[in-house]
């Protein structure tokens, strides 16, 4: 199982009658680490949800390793190797932690959930608890672990650090970097903590009002405080 290449062309999408994405094109090479940044409400989550097949798409194409995803429903995309960790975590509240993890296993044997426990020992302690009873941060760990268990070739992470203690954030970002740099996954990340995003990514995309307005490397961006300020609104 190896990382997949993502190519998006002229993607427009939204909810019901409301258009949010206004023609997005971007491409991520296999094993790439791309951070998608932008202010509140610019459509970062909508972009991920659209790639995962959960919004209404009006036009445009999404290719994963050359395979057109748009004709598939969310479940088929996942089976084709897409992994999605949504911003709202989407824990199965009435399933136990362990069952939540089973649900992410795809066709792998049940014993493999030990991988998740190795990543987050905290989850092992709570494994008989209902998902809905977990603390905010534990839920965040669970949703990430659950998706990674399915061994996606392309992983979409929507604010995976939200609510996590700083020490865990470090470990987690290190793990993501490891997954990408060993060529197992391509990772797209949305993150509010710019430092973490810059440390992780080899490429940055900035959205504004549903459009890509800037692309480049983290290095470029850090050297351009004016752009950072204008597009990401840091440091007023």
């Amino acid at each position, binding site marked *: 199982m190896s990382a997949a290449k993502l190519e998006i062309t002229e993607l427009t999408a939204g*909810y019901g009658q*409301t258009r949010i994405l206004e023609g997005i094109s971007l491409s991520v090479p296999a094993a790439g680490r791309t951070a998608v940044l932008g*202010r*509140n*409400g610019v459509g970062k*989550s909508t972009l991920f949800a659209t790639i995962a097949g959960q919004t209404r798409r009006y036009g445009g194409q999404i290719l994963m390793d050359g395979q057109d995803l748009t004709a598939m429903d969310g479940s088929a995309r996942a089976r084709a190797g897409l992994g999605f960790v949504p*911003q709202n975590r989407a824990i199965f509240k009435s399933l136990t932690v362990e069952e939540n993890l089973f649900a992410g296993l795809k066709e792998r044997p049940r014993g493999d959930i030990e991988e998740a426990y190795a990543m987050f020992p*905290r989850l092992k302690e*709570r494994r008989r608890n209902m998902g809905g*009873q*977990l*603390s*905010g*941060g*534990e839920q*965040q*760990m669970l949703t990430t672990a659950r998706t990674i268990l399915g061994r996606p070739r392309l992983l979409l992470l929507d*604010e995976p650090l*939200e*609510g*996590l*203690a*700083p*020490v*865990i*954030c*470090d*470990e987690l970002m290190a793990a993501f970097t490891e997954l990408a740099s060993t060529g197992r996954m391509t990772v797209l990340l949305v993150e*509010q*903590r*710019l430092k973490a995003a810059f440390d992780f990514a080899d490429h940055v995309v900035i959205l504004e009002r549903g459009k890509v307005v800037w692309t480049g490397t983290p290095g470029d961006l850090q050297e351009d405080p004016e752009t950072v300020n204008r597009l*990401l*609104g*840091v440091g*007023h």
Partner: protein
Amino acid sequence: MSLFEVRNLSKKFGGLNVTNDVSISLNPGDRIALIGPNGAGKTTFVNLVTGHIRPDAGVVMIAGQDVTRLSPRARVHAGLVRSFQVTRLFPEMSPEEHVAMAILQRMGKVEKAFGDYRSMPEVMAETAEILGILNLTPIARSRVSGIAYGQQRLLEIGLAMALRPKVLLLDEPAAGVPSSDTVLIERALDRLPPDLAVLMIEHDMDFVFRFAQRVVVLAAGTVIFDGTPAQVAADPQVREAYLGSYAE
């Protein structure tokens, strides 16, 4: 006498000691941060204090009044208000309605069966002011279900402000709010009356260190540290259990 005092609060879930003999007290004007590893029991502590969960042992006092046996609602009347870690708003209502309702509640008019809040100038003026502080005026009349998550978080703060509490408990108010907008939250917190005591749970350490005069660290249900931000940052135990590379 402190404004708000928790003594020897304890709670178990099954075999798990989520809150273990915790005592904390707040004076008027305090700005305190409660931090700690995930699952340390911070949210549970708030739930115990606000009465959403019953403690196994311990006492909660507000302004000298023992509220341990009171309903969540009665505690709000005693001056204790909270926000939620995961936003809990009314999806079909607008930000304006949210804030107006909180104001009406504070004024004791929320059960009036006649009239319309929009014809009450004092309510409208205060609503407009609060929404203004939070930059929510442009979307004052949209349905909450369609506004971005960050704005919902701001509205959570707005609701708390409208209730004019004596003690305010904020559970991760900045989670999901981009750094650009944390400023708005800080601005809103700055505008709170100076004699109000605030206890905030937060994992964003930049924010914590800018905000707090005092930091309490909770781990596995127990208070392991209580001191100034500088002391916390220097404490090796806290660094290992919680701060990680941040302390560098």
